[in-house]
Structure formats: C-alpha cells, structure tokens
C-alpha cells in the first residue's frame, strides 16, 4: 500500500510538471500583455515594470526561474495586486471554496445515496417516483436557479439565513444547499440504478435464503456493492465542487477562488492564472488518487499493482 502510494505520488509530480510547463508556454503564446491596457506608460516605464517581473529576460530563463520557484512553493507575484505573492492570493481565496465544496459534496452524496436507496427498495412505489422526480429536477435545473430561489425564500422572506457574504457558518448554508443539489441528484440516480441491479443478483438471494432481514440485506450486502460505480462519477464532480463554482460564488458574494480565477483571466494576471491552474491540477490528481484508494477499500477484488495490498 505504501509503495503503491509512493509510486502514484511520483507519477503525480510528473503530471504536474507537464501541466506547469504547458501552462507556462501557453501563457507566453497568448496575445496581449499585462501592460497593453496601460498605454499611457512611456517605453522606459514599461521597461522598468517588465524588469520588475522578470519579463525582460529570454523565455527559457524565465521558464527555469519559474520552475525553480515552484519547487519552493513560490508561484510568483501577481501583476495586479501589487507585490502580493500568488500563493497568498490563492490561499486566501481557497478556504471558502474548499469549505463550500466539501460541505456540498458530503451532504449531497449522503442524501443522494439515501434517496437512491429508498427509491430502489420501494421500487416502482410512490417513494421511488418522488425521488426520481427530485433527481431529474436536480440534474436538469441549473444551480443558480436554486440559488436565487433559496435566497428569496430563506433569506429575504423568512430571514433564516443571510442573503449573501461570508463570515459565519450561517453564511455557508444557502450556497451549500444550492451547490449540493446536483451531486445529490446524481448520487440518487446512480445509487437507485445500481441498487436495483444488485438486489436482483444471486448473492442477494443467498442472503435471503439465510433468513436475514430485508434491512440487513440492503445495508450489509446491497449498499456496498452498489456504491462502487458511484465513486467513479462522484470523483470528477468533487473536483468541480472544490475548485469553486463561479456562479454560486458570485450570487452569494463568496470570496472564493472561482471568482478570483475569472478576474485574473480578464486582467491578464498571468502568474495568478498559472498558479490557479496548477492548484486545480494538484487537487485533481490528489482526488483521483483518493478515489483509487477508495476503490481498494470498498472492492476487495481490486488489487494494487506494484505494491502488496
């Protein structure tokens, strides 16, 4: 297990290196420069600015310096926010996004699994139809519609939660709910389909023939086996949620990283763009590793290659 993880981390580093290289050269190829908007600067002034950010040096030298900085956790200095290191900007913005993402992922999948389970157990009953409708609505209605609805009902009309902004846990409730609808609906759909299939399989009949209660059969024998495919869909979704959703962050005025990313792109803040790309990549590969490890925990048939399990 340890050897397997070490090997995976090694590959992750290679992946990240490639991504860093790509994003660096892509930035170099982009039309426009951080200075293009500020035509009022004289040539001399521009030269000073370029020197300050090391942009006057040849591209290969810039690249080596950039990599050297990365190794030390230095993502460069933002063009926009004077003298602020990119890593600080990201860290400040990451917190709210991560919290919202984690909350919506955890509550969304738990609730979704529960819904799907109920639907499968009462297959073709009223509860099944209800949960199917919830799932369809949840996957087809965009989250900003829910966001607006939630704000209006629970903040404006009822006044239970703040309309927007960031600060206390209460501030996180409505954006979390708005964000969790989609993962919940997806989890519900997958769990239902899988669970129905699993409950028709032979080993469930074996369990019934043992005289076990239906609830024991569902939870001990059915659930675990139906969760396996769910992990595959929830993984990428987790990344999407953790890296912040621009729309939701805008609506609730959450100082998250999604909003930050868009701003950086609009103002050609290259170091911040590259830093954010790299951060998203890191989260992505880490989550993929976690998913693969989860598989091993849930499904004993999956063997780790290259390490003793």
């Amino acid at each position, binding site marked *: 297990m340890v050897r397997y993880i070490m090997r995976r981390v090694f590959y992750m580093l290679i992946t990240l290196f490639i991504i860093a290289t790509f994003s660096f050269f892509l930035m170099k190829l982009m039309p426009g420069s951080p200075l293009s908007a500020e035509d009022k600067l004289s040539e001399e002034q521009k030269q000073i600015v370029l020197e300050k950010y090391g942009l006057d040096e040849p591209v290969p030298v810039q690249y080596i310096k950039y990599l050297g900085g990365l190794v030390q956790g230095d993502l460069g200095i933002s063009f926009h926010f004077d003298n602020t290191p990119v890593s600080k900007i990201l860290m400040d913005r990451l917190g709210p996004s991560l919290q919202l993402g984690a909350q919506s992922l955890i509550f969304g999948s738990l609730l979704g699994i529960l819904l799907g389970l109920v639907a499968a157990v009462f297959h073709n009953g009223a509860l099944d139809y209800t949960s199917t409708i919830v799932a369809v609505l949840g996957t087809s209605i965009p989250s900003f519609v829910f966001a607006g609805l939630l704000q209006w009902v629970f903040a404006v009309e009822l006044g239970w939660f703040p309309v927007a902004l960031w600060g206390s846990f209460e501030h996180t409730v409505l954006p979390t709910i708005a964000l969790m609808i989609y993962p919940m609906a997806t989890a519900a759909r997958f769990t239902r389909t899988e669970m129905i299939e699993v409950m028709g399989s032979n080993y469930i009949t074996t*369990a019934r023939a043992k005289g076990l209660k239906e609830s024991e059969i569902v939870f*001990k024998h059915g659930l675990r086996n139906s969760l396996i495919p769910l992990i595959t869909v929830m993984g990428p979704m987790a990344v999407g949620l953790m890296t912040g959703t621009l729309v939701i962050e805008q609506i609730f005025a959450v100082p998250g990283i999604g909003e930050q990313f868009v701003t950086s792109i609009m103002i050609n803040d290259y170091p911040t763009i590259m830093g954010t790309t790299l951060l998203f990549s890191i989260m992505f590969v880490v989550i993929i590793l976690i998913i693969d490890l989860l598989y091993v925990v849930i499904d004993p048939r999956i063997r780790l290659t290259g390490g003793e399990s």
Partner: protein
Amino acid sequence: MSKLLEVKDLKVSFNTFNGEVQAVRGVSFDLNKGETIAIVGESGSGKSVTSNAIMQLLPKPHGYVKGGEILFEGEDLVKKSTSEMRKIRGKDISMVFQDPMTSLNPTMKIGTQIMEGLIKHQKMSKEHAKKRAIELLDLVGIPQPEVRMKQYPHQFSGGMRQRVVVAISLACNPKILIADEPTTALDVTIQAQILELMKDIQKKTESAIIFITHDLGVVANVADRVAVMYAGKVVEIGTTDDIFYNPKHPYTWGLLGSMPTLDSAEEELFAIPGSPPDMTNPPQGDAFAARNKFALEIDKVMEPPMFKVSDTHYAATWLLHEDAPKIEPPASVQLRMQGFANTGNKVGDQ
C-alpha cells in the same frame, strides 16, 4: 419414517406482460427425514420455481403460489408470515444454488458470510460463530480454514466457492437442504467431488436433501427417490430403482435414452425431439404429447392422472391405463435399463 415435508398439489404462477406463466401446475411429493429425493427434468420444467416456492423466495409480487400446500413438519409454509419464514430459512431449510461464481457476496469475507446465519439463528457470539465457521469450512474440505475465513470469494476457485456455499447452507444443521443444480456450473471432476461431499455430509448430518438436476446421470449416485418433472408437473415418481430399472413414462424413457453411457459412442441416443411447451398457454391434454411418439389419441384431449405402478412408484401416462396398448420402451432405452440392472446402481459413475 415420519414425513418431514409434504408438497401437495402446488401451483405457482408468474404475472408477466405476456400473461400468466403457469410455471408449476400441481406438483406433489413428500420427503422423509434423512432422505434424498432428486427432482429431474429438462431446463424450464419448473424445478427451481418449486424449490423457491418451498423457501418462499418467489420474486414478489409477480411470482405467487396459486394453490396447494407446502407442509413442513405439518405446518403450511405458504401461510407463514415473512418473519416466521425468516426463522425457517437458513435454519430448518437451507439452499445451495446453481452458480457458485455469483452466489457469494464479492465484497464480504467468506468467514463473515458463513457466520451471519449462525449469529442470526443460533444467537451465537462472534467468537463462537467463528469457531463453528472454521469447523464448517473444514467439514466441506477446504484446507487452511483459518486463513480462508479472511479471504474474499474471488480468491476461491469455482469448486471451492461451491464448497463455501455448502458450508453456509449447513451452518445451522438444517433439516432440509435444497440443492438446485449444485454441480451444473462446475466441470466434470469438480462435479464428482461436490457430489461426494454432499453424500458425505448427508451421512454426517442426517439432513434430508432435495437434489435438483437436469442430469439423470448424477441422480443414481445420490438419490433414494426420484421425481421426474415436465412442464410444471411431476410425471413419474418412484425409488431410484423404480425409475432406472422400470421406467413407465415415455418422458423418463427419453431422459434415460439421452443419457450418455460408457459405450454410447456407437449406440444411437434416444433423444427427445422438440422443446417444452410455452407455459403461458399450456397445451390441452398431456403436455408431453406433442413430443411423444407413443402418444395416444386421448393424450391430446385429456390429461393422464397418476397411475399407481407399485406402492412406491407412480406415473402420469395413459399407457398405464388397462385399455392402453402394451408398449415397451424403445430398444436403446431397454438396453440401458438392463445395463443399470447388471451393474447395480452405478449409473452415476459414468
């Protein structure tokens, strides 16, 4: 001998989009303590449905018992509530299924799967159940039971998995063990081993066994009595000797005739032509008539009742009626019957 199980005129149907499938249409047989009865018949004749009805494990709600009784120690299982039935399943009556590759939970340790029933029915502590599970694995011939307990099904071969399934079914010393084609999915050498195991276990535990198979070759070796099923009915029932030495129903002749024997290479096999009828619309008269070259006119109109051949032997064919022409089994079948008689009960070894 006391009757452990009496199935009386059992009728089971399924509601499907094409209408009612009459899978079992009046099956009767009984089972004594410690006895092995084999239920034989082509695929689709209603063997599994019969055994699932006994376990009350028919797929709800579209599968249901339409009539008849299943008396276990005098009590009708059809009338039992779900929770009463749960106390019987796995404890008094247990089951071994056909496909060992899919009948174990892939994500649960073998040991846990065996211990479940013990903890449930016998209220054993975990420690005690563990000890008993190791004993059971040992009983069914799995080496290194302590190690194997902690493994998952995919770490076992097909034959070994079936041994595990047998261990699960034996956990609570059931009075009846239903084995639904327990060897069909296994290759020939493993089949023989599992059969040996079942016989061995029967000696040790004195459970009664309902052994379901479509292969008469397996039967002579394990069964005391045989019930031959066709199109949802028992068409002939008798002791193993009755069925092998003195078969009366043309369908039984067909089954015997299509059994390969040692020197069957040159011999002509007496195969049954055609295929079983559609159970949504069972034919009028004798369901086997269309495939039976000995069929009489009356077969097309009226169902034959069970005729008594001897105290132990009954068959549902008009050929046994006193007015029917005297018809002997075809030559190839007679040859086999003689062969069985000469070698003694050794049919299954072939």
